[in-house]
Every structure is written in structure tokens, then in C-alpha cells.
């Protein structure tokens, strides 16, 4: 009873100090939904209105039709005509164009072979974008060719496919950045903010004051964690609401599973936040530790920016262990594929193990270091 | 001759009147003590006189320069010791001093000569090569004092220079303060210690940003009915 009582009062103290600092209030309450909304809309991975130039050696109605077809698509925007081949490289190097389409003499949608097919020169410095551009161009060419052949009663030899996109039939682009942004929000609040608060207490010397009271280290930790946990729970709700309302991403599985999943990962990041604050000495070290041990691995190796399957075979086993990877996989499962948490038992065990180990080490470290002078 | 004077000097922070209508004057070579409880306005007054904070109302001058329009000129001619004893922690004692000497335009020869002059006086020779972070609190305060006087300012502002020191260290600090004043430097210092008030030539008592009493320690003692400065101080607080 006394234990709960102590935790309650430490939690109240922590809440008051959060709410009386305007900047931390902005970061804790307003920034997460702002990150989700702004970057959920801003971070897209499919290029649109890509400027292209044309070197048309054919100059027939068919070639004009092809150019118009490209220009009318949302992916491309006609920018310029080129006169000579020598203009191609400068156009892509210095100009505004990312693509140059060279239509050969004798271009014909009825008979496309190596000689009559257009040559597409793409600025491939950004391989992700250039891959999309190449794919979109091929699709447009095929589409126009199929239409042309149908109009003339000719059957294409190309096999046709019925393609169904499972779990995201409209290929909604928001599903790419949203889970990553949620992960960033969780790291920001539950790890970074909490560890800053712990460190600040140590620096000011108030942690020593607390330690000299009947409150033990576990009560102090619990009391400090509770307000951040409540704020995170608040944000899980806003994320759930905003995802559905703004981005039309509704939980395919159970909403309770979604909340439980988020809670588990928040606890994991809280454990890491405590672990970092237990061993660092200065705020700069804390910031850099959070950056290099939390943000960087979870952003780059979790499947948020680059799929795990594209990573080096040496790195993949480590990437699978990163909490962010488990979060991304579980999120996609629960929210998009409608799985339950038990279908992700490997990820859950990974997270629970890491959380437990991090908590034990954090408590040990805090008991050892929290009383020390900074 | 008055080295420092103020005329209804005030500093407001929103609705808080940190310094309220203070009019004082300090003569050359005097040791002026500012006595007051925490939050009385001593540090704010000192900061305004140093040209660090612009006043909200009133005027003032230090060493003949206006504290509002000629703050830069004032800073060339004063020395200041911070309440929080701010040193460059990762620099050695000699490096801290050398840095401040250079800021005031002293060349290497002048710095070396001045250091030779002060080294024995302040007994800092043994600590010359220590990092500031390695010094005890007494020596840190002594170093801060040396930094404040190194460039031979004619006016010195000391914000609680003996705060936190043991009695022996406080005695040694006052020795240095007297020695500096004897050389003609005007000193304005704030203090909490009533016993130190007797070491000053004149005292200003402050409460809630206002001057509540002013005069020599003996004069103030008379006002209190010879009950002591402490009694007068408490009476002023009430």
C-alpha cells in the first residue's frame, strides 16, 4: 500500500514538472500527432510528375500519341524536346529532367522489338526513384501497346495476369511511412524524454534527495515512468484515431491487439531509455546514445526505410533482433494483415526478453549510479 | 569622488520589481557592502551596474560611463566575480588566467609580469598546472577572484565572494579584498554574512528591491540602538 502511495506521489510530482515546462509539453503532447500527420502525408515513395524530355526521331502521330500518353499520366510531365543525342547527358546532369525518352525511327506499337522500342535514359543516382520510374514507364508502354493492339484486332503474345494486391488493394502509400513514424514517436517519448528526465534529476541532485527518503529505487523509477506511460497511451489512441480518420488505415485485426502491441513496444523503449540514463554522464552523451543506439538502428535496420530482405546476409540476423523490426512486422501483421499477436510469437518473445534484460540492467545501473555525483 | 552613482534605478521582470528606485553612490577606494536576504535584488543591481542588464527605469554611471549607453566602456574598466564561480573547467589555472588577460588586451609579457606579481600574493603557484575542475571550492573562488582583478580594474564587483567558504578561506579572501582596496580599487560586494558587514566601509541594506538602510556599519549600529547589525537587519526584514 505504502509502495503504491509513494509511486503515486512521485508520479504526481513528475506530471507537474512536465506540465510546467512549456517546451516539453509541446514535445510530449503536440509533436507526435504533428509528426504523424505532416510526415504521413509528406513521406511518399512513388515519384509523381517526373519531368521528362523527348528526342523524337520518328515524328509520327504514333510517337506523339505515346508522348501524350506519358504526359497525361500522373507519374510524368513533359518538359522539353531535345534535338540531338549529345543533349541527353547534359539534360540529365544539369537539367530539370530525370528521364529522357528517345523514340527511334520506325517506332510502332504494333511491332516492338529491340530496334523499334523506345530507349529510356533515367537518372539513376537515386536507385529507389529510378526503379519506380522505370517500372511506371514500362507499365505505361505496355498499357498503350495493349490498347493499340486491341484497336487493331491484334493479340499480344505477352501473358496477361490477374493481379490482386493483398491487404492493401489500393496500394495506399501511407502504409509505408506510418508504422515507422509511430515507432519514432514511441522512441521520442518513452525513451528519449524519459531518460532526459531521469538524467536531469540526477544532475540537479534531487535524485539524491529522493534516495535519502524511504522511497526505493524501484518506486522512483515506477513513479517517473507512470506519467510517460500515460502520455504514450494517450498517443496510441490519437494514432489509432488519426490513422483511421486521415489515412483510412483501420486495424484489420483486433483493436485490443493493436493497443496491446503498442503498449508492449512502449515498455520496451522505456526499458531502453532507463538503461541509457543509468549509464551516461552528460546530456550530450545521452542524446548521442539515444541517437546511435535507438534512432539509427530502428530507422535503418527495422524495415522502415529499407526492407530487411535487401540487407547484407551478415546484418540480417542482427536486424531481426532489433525491437523496431519486431514492431514493424507486428504492426503490418496486426493492422494490415489481420493477424493476432500469437501469430507473432517470435517477435513477442524477442521483445519481452529484451525488455526484461534491459529493465534488470537499468535497475542495477541506476542503483549503482543514481546516487553518484554527475 | 563618486565612482558609482545611481538615480532611481529600477529593474522590472514583468510584474516583479527586482530593483526598485535605488539611488546610491560609492566613492573611490571604498568597500561598499550590499546586504540583504535572498531575492532582495543585490545580484540584479550588480548586473545593472556592470552593464550586463539594461535598467527599466532610472540612470546610473560607473567610472564616469553611463550604464545604459556606454555599457561596453564600463566592462573594459571593471572586474566581476560571479556568484556561481564560473570557471573554464577544462582549462588549467594558468590557462584560465591567461585567457581572461588576453580578452582584456594584455600581451604575453604583461600577463607574465602580472602573474608573477599575484602568484605569491594569492599562493596560487602550487595550483598553477591544475585543471579548474580539480580545485577545491575555496581555491575555485580564489581563482575567480584572481581572474576578476588580473587586469587591474579600478572598480570591482564581487557577488557573494565568500559564499560557501570555511572560516579560514573567508579570512584569506578578505585579506585579498582589503589588499585590493588599499591599492585604490573601489569594491562593491554582496554578502549574506552579517559579520562581514563590519569589514565594509559602507553598507546598503536591501529588501524587496529597495534600499532600506545606508551608511557605515557604525552608523547603522547606532540606528539599531546599538543592538547590532543583525538586529537592524531583522528589523528591516520585518
Amino acid at each position: 500500500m505504502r509502495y503504491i502511495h509513494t509511486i503515486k506521489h512521485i508520479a504526481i510530482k513528475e506530471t507537474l514538472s512536465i506540465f510546467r515546462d512549456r517546451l516539453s509539453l509541446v514535445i510530449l503532447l503536440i509533436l507526435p500527432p504533428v509528426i504523424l500527420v505532416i510526415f504521413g502525408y509528406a513521406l511518399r515513395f512513388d515519384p509523381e510528375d517526373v519531368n521528362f524530355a523527348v528526342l523524337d526521331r520518328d515524328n509520327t502521330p504514333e510517337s506523339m500519341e505515346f508522348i501524350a500518353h506519358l504526359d497525361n499520366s500522373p507519374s510524368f510531365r513533359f518538359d522539353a524536346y531535345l534535338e540531338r543525342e549529345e543533349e541527353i547527358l547534359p539534360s540529365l546532369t544539369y537539367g530539370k529532367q530525370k528521364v529522357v525518352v528517345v523514340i527511334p525511327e520506325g517506332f510502332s506499337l504494333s511491332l516492338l522489338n529491340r530496334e523499334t522500342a523506345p530507349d529510356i535514359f533515367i537518372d539513376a543516382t537515386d536507385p529507389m526513384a529510378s526503379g519506380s520510374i522505370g517500372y511506371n514507364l514500362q507499365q505505361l508502354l505496355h498499357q498503350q501497346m495493349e490498347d493499340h493492339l486491341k484497336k487493331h484486332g491484334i493479340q499480344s503474345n505477352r501473358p496477361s495476369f490477374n493481379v490482386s494486391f493483398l491487404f492493401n488493394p489500393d496500394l495506399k502509400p501511407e502504409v509505408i511511412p506510418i508504422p515507422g513514424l509511430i515507432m519514432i514517436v514511441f522512441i521520442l517519448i518513452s525513451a528519449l524524454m524519459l531518460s532526459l528526465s531521469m538524467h536531469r534529476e540526477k544532475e540537479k541532485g534531487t535524485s539524491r534527495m529522493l534516495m535519502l527518503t524511504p522511497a526505493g529505487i524501484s518506486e522512483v523509477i515506477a513513479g517517473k515512468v507512470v506519467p510517460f506511460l500515460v502520455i504514450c497511451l494517450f498517443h496510441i489512441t490519437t494514432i489509432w484515431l488519426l490513422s483511421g480518420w486521415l489515412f483510412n488505415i483501420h486495424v484489420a485485426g483486433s483493436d485490443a491487439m493493436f493497443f496491446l502491441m503498442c503498449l508492449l513496444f512502449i515498455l520496451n523503449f522505456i526499458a531502453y531509455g532507463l538503461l541509457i540514463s543509468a549509464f551516461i554522464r552528460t546530456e550530450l552523451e545521452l542524446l548521442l546514445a539515444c541517437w546511435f543506439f535507438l534512432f539509427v538502428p530502428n530507422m535503418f535496420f527495422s524495415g522502415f526505410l529499407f526492407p530487411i530482405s535487401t540487407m547484407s546476409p551478415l546484418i540480417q540476423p542482427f536486424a531481426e533482433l532489433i525491437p523496431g523490426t519486431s514492431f514493424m512486422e507486428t504492426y503490418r501483421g496486426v493492422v494490415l494483415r489481420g493477424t493476432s499477436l500469437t501469430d507473432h510469437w517470435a517477435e513477442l518473445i524477442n521483445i519481452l526478453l529484451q525488455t526484461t534484460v534491459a529493465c534488470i540492467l537499468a535497475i542495477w545501473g541506476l542503483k549503482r549510479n543514481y546516487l553518484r555525483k554527475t | 569622488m563618486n565612482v558609482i552613482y545611481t538615480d532611481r534605478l529600477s529593474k522590472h521582470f514583468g510584474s516583479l520589481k527586482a530593483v526598485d528606485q535605488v539611488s546610491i553612490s560609492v566613492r573611490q577606494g571604498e568597500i561598499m557592502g550590499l546586504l540583504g536576504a535572498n531575492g532582495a535584488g543585490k545580484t540584479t543591481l550588480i548586473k545593472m551596474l556592470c552593464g550586463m542588464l539594461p535598467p527599466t527605469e532610472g540612470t546610473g554611471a560607473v567610472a564616469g560611463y553611463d550604464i545604459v549607453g556606454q555599457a561596453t566602456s564600463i566592462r573594459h574598466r571593471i572586474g566581476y566575480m560571479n556568484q556561481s564561480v564560473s570557471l573554464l573547467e577544462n582549462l588549467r589555472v594558468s590557462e584560465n588566467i591567461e585567457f581572461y588577460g588576453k580578452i582584456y588586451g594584455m600581451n604575453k609579457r604583461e600577463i607574465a609580469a602580472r602573474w608573477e606579481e599575484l602568484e605569491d600574493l594569492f599562493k596560487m603557484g602550487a595550483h598553477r598546472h591544475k585543471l579548474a575542475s580539480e580545485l577545491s571550492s575555496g581555491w575555485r573562488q580564489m581563482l575567480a577572484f584572481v581572474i576578476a582583478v588580473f587586469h587591474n580594474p579600478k572598480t570591482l564587483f564581487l557577488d557573494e565572494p565568500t559564499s560557501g567558504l570555511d572560516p579560514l578561506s573567508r579570512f584569506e579572501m578578505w585579506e585579498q579584498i582589503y589588499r585590493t582596496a588599499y591599492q585604490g580599487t573601489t569594491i562593491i560586494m554582496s554578502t549574506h554574512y552579517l559579520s562581514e558587514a563590519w569589514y565594509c566601509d559602507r553598507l546598503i541594506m536591501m529588501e524587496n528591491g529597495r534600499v532600506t538602510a545606508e551608511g557605515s556599519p557604525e552608523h547603522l549600529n547606532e540606528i539599531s540602538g546599538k543592538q547590532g547589525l543583525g538586529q537592524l537587519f531583522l528589523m528591516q526584514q520585518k
Partner: protein
Amino acid sequence: MKILAAILWKEFLQLVRNKELLILLFACPVSILGIVPFALENNTRINAGIVDYDRTPVSRSYAAMMVHSPEFAEVRHFPTIESAERSVKLGQTKVILVIPPDHERKLNRFPPGDPLNLAIEATHPKKAQHLLATTASLLTEAHRAGSQHEVEAYQKVGSPHKVEAHQANIHNLFNPEASYQYYYLVSLLVLVQTIIGCCLLNHNIISEKEKGVLAQFNSTSLNRYLYIAGKGLFAMFVYLAITLVSLTFCRLVYGMTVQGNPEEYLLVTILFSFPMLSLGYLAAVLTKNQVQTIYLLILLLLTMILMSTMFTSLDSMPEWARLTRFFNPVYYMLDISRLIILKGVQMKHFITQAVMMTATGLMLSAAAVLIMRKSPERW
């Protein structure tokens, strides 16, 4: 000049005596550049599933081609569509090919048989497109190989007229192998420069502010602008040193060289330090302690980095998001870095970006100076 020299010397002594900071400053960029690129090898291998209702040599040839293709890691056979979909749901399979019955019998005949069915896991739309393109391309090839003689036969008798479909000839310039590594190495280099440039000066000022050292300087004859300029100059030297170390590291480990003029790149790096140091300084002026400054920097840096095209392309961003680039020095630095390092472009072709980048630095510095003059106690 003497005072400036004194300030630079003081900053140097403080840095070299702070071993932890020194290690962090040089080790962190090297570790980012040394580890993160391993995430970018682009060894895409697909886990596929086949539901074969045809069970003929042609349908088995599709499976054989997928098994032998380097693009596919695993090809599993499922008895039913439901079992295959379950596998996709659990994340074990990414694409399912359903071959309808009578596929071989109706191949290249008229009327055509049921098309092949591809079900693709689309929780990551970009990946889904790639899966579709890879699988469709492979199947097209398999289809063509299997039916070439049929095409010739049709072409001889003349009806129904069929054509061999072909694709456009794609040429990837500047990066023929579509390697992610160099592109993102440049991004990581700029990321390192952004963080170091911003945090270095900021941390320096804020820690002096907290300890009261700035207040002490305020009482001296030291010109505060000179002091900040001195600190900024020193921070710039450190930042340049870290950039050189990072570039050397990239060259030694990844073989990445600057295709353009290295001196021009260093000049641009110096120009970039100006807005970053100014931003760090502005954050230091606006805040009172380290915690507040960390909050503010997180907010600003996260926004600038995510909107800078470091991880997405400008063409994929919505119009309103693209407009933010005009105020984002990180965007300009990324653009210039890609032009110099990856394309070998000369300075005259990116002078506009360089000017804009410097202009953002001027704006940030001006803002910081204005705030400092208005509220000198912030210093």
C-alpha cells in the same frame, strides 16, 4: 585578432581535454557510415508460393524458373489458395502464383485461357510493385521461351495475328547497377554533417550558459559577437575535420570517390556549416538549458532531415511538402553533394543552390542576433 586567437585556443584546449566528447565526435560518424550501408545492399530475394492447378510441364517450368532465379529465395508449393494466403498473412510468403487448370492446353490458342493469377503482399506498396515487376518479368520470359515456336507458326499462317511483346530499353545513367550504397552514403554523410554541425556549437554555448561562464564573459570587455564568431569558427574547423575523416572512410571502405572537384566539395561543406552552426546557435539563444535545447533540436532536425529528400525523392512528395525545400539547407546540401560526388558536376551548375543555402544561414544568424539584442539576458 589576438582575442580571436585566444578564443580559438581556449576552445581547442576545452575540446582536446574532453575525451568523451572527442571520441563521440569522431566515432559516431564512422560507426554510422560503417554500419548503416550494410542495410543497403539490395539483395532482394523473394519468398514465393505456387498453387498449381494445371500440373503440366509448362506450369512446372514456371516453378523451375523461379527456383533457379537469383531473385527468389524460396519457392513453396501449396495445395490450395487458402493455405497459400495463410502463409502470406503470416508473412512467410510475399507473392503467390496461381496457375489455372488447362493453362498449357489453352496456351497461345484462341480464345485465350484464364490468365495467370498473381497475389502480392502489398503492406509495403513499393515492395509490392517490385515483386510484381520481378515476377511478371520472369513469367513473361518463361512464357515466351515456352511458346516461341507457336508464335512462328501463327506468323506463318497469318491468323490470328500475334506479336511478340517487347519492353522499352532502359538505360540507368550514373548508377548502372542501381546500387543503393553510394546514393545513401552521400545521404549519411550529409546526415552526419547536419547533426555534428548543429549540435557542436549548440552544446558548447548551452553548457557555458548553464554554468554561468557566459554571464562571466558578459561582464568583461569581450565582444559577444566576436566570442560567438570565434566559437563558430572553431566549430567549423572541427566539423570540416570530421567531414574529411568521413570522406576518407568512405573512400577506403566503399571505394566511393568524389566524381567532381574535391576542393569545390570542401568549399560547399564550409558553406553548409554556416546554416547548421547558425541553427545550433539560434537554438542555444532560445533555450535556457540542455534539456530544452535537446527538445528544440529534435523538433527542428527531425523536420529538416525528413523533408530534405534524404530518404525519399522530391518527385514523390506532395506539392506543399516540396515547397519547404526553399527554407531547408539540408535539402540544398544533399542536392549539391549528389551533384558533385555522384555526377561530377562543376560549381557553376549549382551556384543557385549554394547561394540559397548561404541565404538560409544568414536568415538563421540574423534571427539569433536579433533575439540576442532584444533580450540580452538570453546570452
